[in-house]
């Protein structure tokens, strides 16, 4: 093994990347930009904001009566949205369009005579147009549903106190002596039965979401761009084959093992530098926190970059032209990224797709990140995933070595 040749190949590879400004765009800028934009699109970059910037909940209230005031009271002063109440109305299709265009996060139509209808015990219809993809809109739906439930329950209870059930459904003891509104409000505000939700893990916050830039998108795009950059660099090996650089290196007493190690370690070094910089930038820019296991972090980055570099050597040996290497590299990266859960969390796909995803290096690496960040796992708990990643790494490197030796000797 000629260490000088290997070191020179690695140094040359790194220098070429560093000197090429366009590769720096792909190495660092695009991954960061993607992380930021995808986190933003998927809605995990933050909440609320200032009340002035909160999305509008438009209430077209033709009634303007006390029953409408009472209905909307639980929705006042919510940090996720602000109520804008007007006394006009609009058609269903216009309301739908306003929400679809995101002019308003939700639209509620309160008809004329709502208060009178509630007082008289008549049936009244409210129409809510909302966007289930927006947190603010979901909150409005939940709060309004609760508020309507309260009004309906009071109406039903008053009915029982006043008249009991309708004759056709009557029971011997269905009528109450009275309805104690104060007692109702007291128990409604301070219910006996409550739900306490908590996330069990390292970060025990209730708004844990994998689409958050701090929790999924950041690490996912680090892995995606490391793999993409290394796979796309397979064309350099194709170029070295085609312009006879490999043959010249062999004449200069470089063994096939030297060449494999030179190409592999060069890719690995770039992958490690790229991963380290991206993880650091994610940490500084978005407060990404990688858990309690530095060793686990180093291991996952090392094994994933190793796999990607080994696969790039294999691809560089198999592709006939640089363009073919580019196309295959992009195809493989995108397929593995989508199947392995780098584009969307694996928990939302069917079980057989989850199994497939978890068997791929992309799925194993992102699961390591999730478990380190979310569960606080270390190397021992993640040993199965590390073994899986190591297998992929060994197989990719072994196949790459075999193919490169064959290329060199023929």
């Amino acid at each position, binding site marked *: 093994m000629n260490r000088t040749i290997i070191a020179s190949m690695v140094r040359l590879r790194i220098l070429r990347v560093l000197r090429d400004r*366009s590769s720096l*765009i792909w190495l660092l800028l*695009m991954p960061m930009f993607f992380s930021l934009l*995808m986190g933003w*699109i998927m809605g995990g970059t933050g909440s609320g904001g200032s009340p002035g910037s909160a999305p509008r909940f438009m209430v077209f209230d033709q009634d303007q009566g006390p029953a409408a005031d009472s209905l909307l009271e639980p929705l006042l002063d919510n940090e996720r949205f602000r109520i804008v109440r007007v006394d006009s109305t609009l058609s269903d299709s216009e309301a739908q369009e306003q929400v*679809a265009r995101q002019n308003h996060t939700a639209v509620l139509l309160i008809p004329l005579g709502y208060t009178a209808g*509630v007082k008289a015990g008549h049936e009244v*219809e*409210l*129409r*809510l*147009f*909302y966007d289930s993809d927006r947190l603010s809109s979901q909150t409005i739906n939940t709060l309004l*549903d609760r508020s*309507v*439930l*309260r*009004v*309906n*329950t009071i109406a*039903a*209870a008053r009915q*029982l106190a006043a008249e009991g059930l309708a004759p056709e*459904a009557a029971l011997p*003891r*269905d009528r*109450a002596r009275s*309805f*104690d509104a104060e007692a*109702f409000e007291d*128990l*409604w505000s301070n*219910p*006996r*039965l*409550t*739900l*306490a*939700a908590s*996330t069990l893990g*390292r970060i025990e916050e209730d708004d*844990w979401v994998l689409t958050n830039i701090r929790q999924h998108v950041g690490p996912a795009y680090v892995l995606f761009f490391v793999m993409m950059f290394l796979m796309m660099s397979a064309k350099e090996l194709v170029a070295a084959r085609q312009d006879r650089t490999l043959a010249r290196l062999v004449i200069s007493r470089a063994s096939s093992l030297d060449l494999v190690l030179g190409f592999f370690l060069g890719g690995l070094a770039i992958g490690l530098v790229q991963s380290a910089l991206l993880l650091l930038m994610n940490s500084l820019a978005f407060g990404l926190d990688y858990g309690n296991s530095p060793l686990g972090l180093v291991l996952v980055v090392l094994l994933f970059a190793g796999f990607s570099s080994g696969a790039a050597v294999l691809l560089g040996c198999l592709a006939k032209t640089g*363009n*073919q290497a*580019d*196309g*295959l590299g*992009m*195809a493989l990266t*995108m*397929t593995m990224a*989508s199947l392995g859960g780098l*584009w969307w969390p694996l*928990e*939302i*796909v*069917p*079980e*057989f797709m989850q199994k497939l995803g978890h068997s791929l290096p992309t799925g194993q690496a992102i699961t390591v990140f*999730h478990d380190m960040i979310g569960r606080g796992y270390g190397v021992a708990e993640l040993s199965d995933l590390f073994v899986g990643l190591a297998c992929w790494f060994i197989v990719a490197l072994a196949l790459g070595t075999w193919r490169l030796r064959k290329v060199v000797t023929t």
Partner: protein
Amino acid sequence: MVIASLVRKDLKRIVGDRRALIVNLVLPLLLTTIMGLSFGGGLTGSSGISAIPIAMVAVDMPQMMKERLTEGLQESDFFTVTWADSSTADAMVRAGQVAAAVVLPEDLTANLIDGKDISVAVWKDPGSPFKSGIVQEILTRMIVRYQAGEAAYNALWPEDRAGMGTDTEDGFLAEDYFAGDFNEVWKRFRNADNDPVLQEAGDRFMTVMDHQVALSDALSVEQIKLTVNDKAPAGQAAESGDVNLFDYFLPSFAVFFLMFAVAAGARDIHRERKQLTLQRQMLSPMTSVDFIVAKWISAALQGMLQLALLFAAGAILFKVNLGPDPYSLAVVIVLTSTAAAGVFILMAVLTPTEKIMDNLSTVVILISAMVGGNFVPVDQMNALLKNAGQFVFNYWANLSFNEVVVQDHGLSEALLPLLILASVSLTLFVINVAVFSVRARRGGLA
């Protein structure tokens, strides 16, 4: 004639490029398949998200009730239930074996009867925030309804609450009488002739049941009906069984990869310059306008061919809808391809080298794809991004395909995006011809 020869030459070269074939045809179909399998059944017929595994903790719940609850929860195929003690449930959640654990407190039945405060806990797995969120949402809705019912009951019949304690003045101990399964409780109350305390408890129980049923009946009539309309994302208005998710995914990926294909076609201008074939052609009787028009036609034809093949394959493999008539989809394909050709030919004309063009076009494609709705549907993006999306041609192309393929609408419904695509195509064509001619006249192509 000259233009036709140039176009023929370019198309021959494109068809012979294996990389282009992989990237532009196989990859969109592959990714569409993956998306279909991931989000909507697709080829195997198994649909979307799998049943949510949950752990239930209920120390004092009778076995029969547990079985009933398990049957009820599993019947919907929404949940798979495992009963466990709290420490096992905690470990299962932390290990990700279940998405959530629902922990009912000890002495639940006694506390319910007794009027004591009760807190139901839901422990969520950090690795399954989506599924555990569903569990929390369902529980919240159930509990709010219970809260409303209980508040109403107590406001109507406060005397019942006072009489339902576990240790009342008449010596009724609820936990003794409600011990065991349903059959045992029933037999105990049926054989209560010689036990005045039990008889009294039985009467009270009947009263409470009458009140409960009356309230339940009363609550089943909603005075205020809240009709909730979701934003109707594309296709959701249809019955869920009628929705073919491939109708969404295929056009998105097709437009995404169309951009790569057309950019590659446009890059040919640089290749011809580098190999000096462009300069040689400029020495022939052919004009610079002939050359740039031929390149524009080649790039547009390449895009049309690719989109046509992808939709044909999509129709055969995934039953993708090809629109309400034979020409709507064709018009969208033509205008999308001409707009794409205009964008990337302009980029090729303005960039000094192939490498810069290569990097710039990839950056532009990825950013356009993100803001234009190829990765995330336009209707799911926030307003700012949606506004930004209106400045990229693929946003309008995606809207047009959505109208024709997803909504099965004709050209009249897709008029606005199609007009914008047509304007973009025409404007960029004129700019391309003008810029290239000026550069050729000034010797800027050398």
